[in-house]
């Protein structure tokens, strides 16, 4: 199954330079019949899991394992694995759709993610044929459960600073020693992907079975949320690991770790869409039934503004997720599913987009769930309603799979690297923009309609992003990576640009097809763009002020004003319409 009709696939980051042709942008509306059926199966399974929430929160790992086996039976663990190893080798859109459904059940979603993304994927990508034959079939059925052991007490973001050691033995085997922290599925997994340094310096991945002598797990962590998922230390004490269980090459562990994270981030972004959609349904239904001052609180503007905002942001996030998966699948179209190298290249090509999805997904979900608590009022703060659990469960999304801070540094960092390598024509575009800003401006034709106005605004967001990154490269040169604040500002602008661009492209496609609900999509896109314009302006001002002063700063700010001459939309009206639709539907309405 492939996402259809993506002709020439745009390269990673290209959307920052110019608008992509409509037909290259995959949207939820372009899902195939199979995608929809997969979504239905995944949603039915998610509902089944949700029914077990209370029991799962007692840390009933037998039930967790049973549910994983059930997921295996349905094929939900098989999407990324070739048929030769018991998988189904489906496209990444199928995987994203599944993640989106399971994202509604916090704890089990973490269990599933650690297993399907972090344990299955490294073996599938870097394992030898023998390793794949040995481990993948039972991971795909859920009979064995996997976990991924990268972090340590002293090395989280600085993953390569791990202290775990692997001592080479004369017979080619290794003896591992060390302690890994915060390991999802740690308490009951059968198989661990462990990173340790060979001879104290060569960062390397290993497949470690729980049954190996010297493998033990510590106590369950007392966590803020995700009480139904296992998180423990994993202790390795003189664990003899056969040479056959070396994963990839000695000293190439970083390749395993970072590529897996590229995929993990994309999948995390996809899963947050499900959580956000679910919470919008909860808010809409609660606001419809909760009466104050003699009327449902859904009739109050303050509540509508919240629900409308939740819908608009989720719409933009969902548009980005589908667009990105379309890019990845487009690149992989016609590629032999057994060709792990091609999949790695595709994930690397869109690593910027994956980091964007990780940050935007976790923060959109966080804000949506925060408003969900708020709309539930006192009931949002007590455990009788799921709102407080969602809020706690989602908090870790901003921390794991690379903190949002690390990802914010990566986003512009990787764009600049691609520019320097010649993979992305960012530097000429930034130069051209500088000339354009110095030239006298002509009056631009007024855009035709709110969606076209939004599209024109997105064109300006691109230019602001280029101006900020261009000035940063010019100002700091090789030392740009030390400027974390400016890099984070640039990341925020780039994230908002990708989100706004993806939302507008999707809404325009809906309008062009004359689909019912196209008006509502246009409202969501316009509302998102309206908010993004204000955020981008504020962030760009901070960025320029950090890099320039005096006359130069004033010139930059004048240029910024020229670019962001965006007439504000009537966001009150837009969000009211979005909220009314959500309340009528009792669910996310798009």
């Amino acid at each position, binding site marked *: *199954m492939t996402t259809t009709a993506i002709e020439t696939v745009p390269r990673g980051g290209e959307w920052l330079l110019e608008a992509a042709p409509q037909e290259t942008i995959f949207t939820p509306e372009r899902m195939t019949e199979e995608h929809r059926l997969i979504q239905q199966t995944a949603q039915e399974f998610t509902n089944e899991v949700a029914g077990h929430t209370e029991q799962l929160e007692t840390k009933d790992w037998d039930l967790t394992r049973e549910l994983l086996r059930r997921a295996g039976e349905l094929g939900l663990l*098989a999407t990324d694995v070739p048929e030769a190893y018991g998988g189904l080798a489906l496209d990444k859109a199928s995987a994203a759709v599944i993640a989106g459904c399971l994202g509604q059940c916090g704890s089990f979603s973490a269990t599933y993610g650690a297993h399907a993304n972090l344990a299955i994927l490294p073996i599938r990508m870097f394992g030898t044929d023998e390793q794949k034959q040995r481990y993948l079939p039972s991971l795909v059925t859920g009979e064995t459960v996997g976990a991924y052991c990268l972090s340590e007490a002293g090395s989280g973001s600085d993953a390569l600073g791990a202290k775990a050691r692997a001592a080479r033995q004369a017979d080619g085997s290794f003896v591992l020693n060390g302690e890994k922290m915060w390991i999802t599925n740690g308490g009951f997994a059968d198989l661990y992907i462990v990173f340790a340094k060979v001879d104290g310096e060569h960062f390397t991945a290993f497949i470690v079975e729980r049954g190996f002598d010297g493998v033990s797990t510590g106590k369950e962590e007392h966590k803020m949320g995700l009480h139904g998922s296992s998180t423990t230390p994993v202790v390795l004490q003189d664990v003899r690991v056969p040479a056959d269980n070396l994963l990839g090459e000695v000293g190439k562990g970083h390749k395993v770790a970072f590529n897996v994270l590229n995929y993990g981030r994309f999948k995390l972004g996809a899963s947050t869409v499900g959580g956000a959609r679910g919470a919008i349904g909860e808010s809409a239904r609660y606001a419809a039934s909760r009466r104050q001052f003699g009327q449902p609180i859904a009739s109050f503007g303050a509540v509508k503004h919240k629900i409308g905002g939740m819908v608009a942001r989720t719409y933009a996030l969902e548009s980005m997720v589908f667009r990105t998966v379309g890019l990845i699948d487009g690149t992989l179209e016609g590629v032999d599913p057994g060709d792990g190298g091609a999949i790695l290249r595709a994930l690397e090509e869109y690593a910027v987009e994956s980091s964007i999805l990780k940050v935007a997904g976790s923060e959109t979900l966080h804000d949506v769930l925060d408003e969900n608590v708020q709309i539930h009022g006192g009931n949002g703060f007590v455990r009788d309603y799921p709102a407080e659990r969602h809020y706690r469960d989602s908090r870790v999304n901003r921390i794991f799979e690379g903190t949002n801070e690390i990802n914010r540094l990566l986003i512009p960092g990787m764009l600049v690297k691609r520019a320097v390598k010649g993979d992305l024509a960012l530097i000429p575009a930034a130069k051209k923009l500088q000339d354009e800003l110095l030239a006298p401006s002509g009056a631009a034709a007024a855009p035709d309609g709110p969606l076209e106005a939004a599209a024109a605004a997105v064109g300006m967001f691109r230019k602001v992003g280029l101006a900020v990154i261009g000035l940063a490269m010019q100002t700091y040169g090789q030392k740009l990576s030390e400027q974390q604040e400016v890099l984070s500002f640039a990341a925020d602008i780039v994230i908002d640009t990708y989100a706004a661009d993806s939302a507008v492209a999707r809404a325009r496609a809906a309008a062009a097809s004359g689909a019912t609900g196209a008006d509502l999509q246009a409202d969501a896109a316009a509302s998102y763009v309206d908010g993004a314009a204000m955020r981008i302006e504020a962030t760009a001002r901070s960025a320029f002020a950090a890099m320039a002063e005096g006359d130069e700063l004033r010139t930059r700010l004048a240029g910024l004003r020229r670019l962001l001459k965006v007439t504000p939309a009537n966001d009150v009206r837009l969000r009211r319409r979005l909220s009314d639709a959500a309340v009528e539907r009792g669910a996310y309405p798009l």
Partner: protein
Amino acid sequence: MKTAVCIKQVVTRDWPLRPAESATWVRDDDASFEMNEPDAYALEEALRLKERHGGEVVVCSAGPARISQVIREALARGADRAIHVESDALSAAGADAVAAALAAAMQDESFDLVLTGLQSDDQGFGQTGVVLAERLGLPHATIIMEVDIAADGAGLRVKRELESGWFQWVAMPLPALLTIQSGINQLRYATLRGIMAAKRKEIRTVPLDGVASQGQRILELYVPEKTSATRFIDGSAPEAARELVRLLREEARVL
């Protein structure tokens, strides 16, 4: 054994219902649709019978192009092939029109057993199955809870649901048509493998022969009006109770 399962596509249960402008059906142009629930149980029963007795399960459905969604779903769950009588005139059609359309497409197939859901979640007349049986010239039994096929395959025993918790076992010959009650088995989900396999299964699309029957039409559809008239009955409890019974019998006419 060759089994047909008739499946209808209906608007999803949680869709907010509003009458369409025509006021003869609900507004469904932007609705989401799903498999009629009793039909899902009929399909499940057919798949279980196939697992026990072998043979083939054929999905039969009549309606506009959009119903291919539930046909694919049935194939993904394990049906072998499908017949789709395609016509826009059959969207929101009554039992008479649907049964006529299905019968025309099914009669040459010589099915041993035809299963339908007991009724549809939208119109709920419970007639499509029995009218279809008549048109196909088959004996039928309704509200079936259990299906037991004789070892020699010559006939079957079925358990019918009656009123007040009573059941009835009926022996009948094959071929036959049964309308299946909801909840009689545990529905399976479509596995991802099944979904991918369904892509390669045959859906035979046939046009509607002639025009859709107009034997039965919905003249007007409206939302029930809410009234909140409350009447207090005075007097002692025995007197008030007597008066209440009289009012319920004579005025409200519900007793």
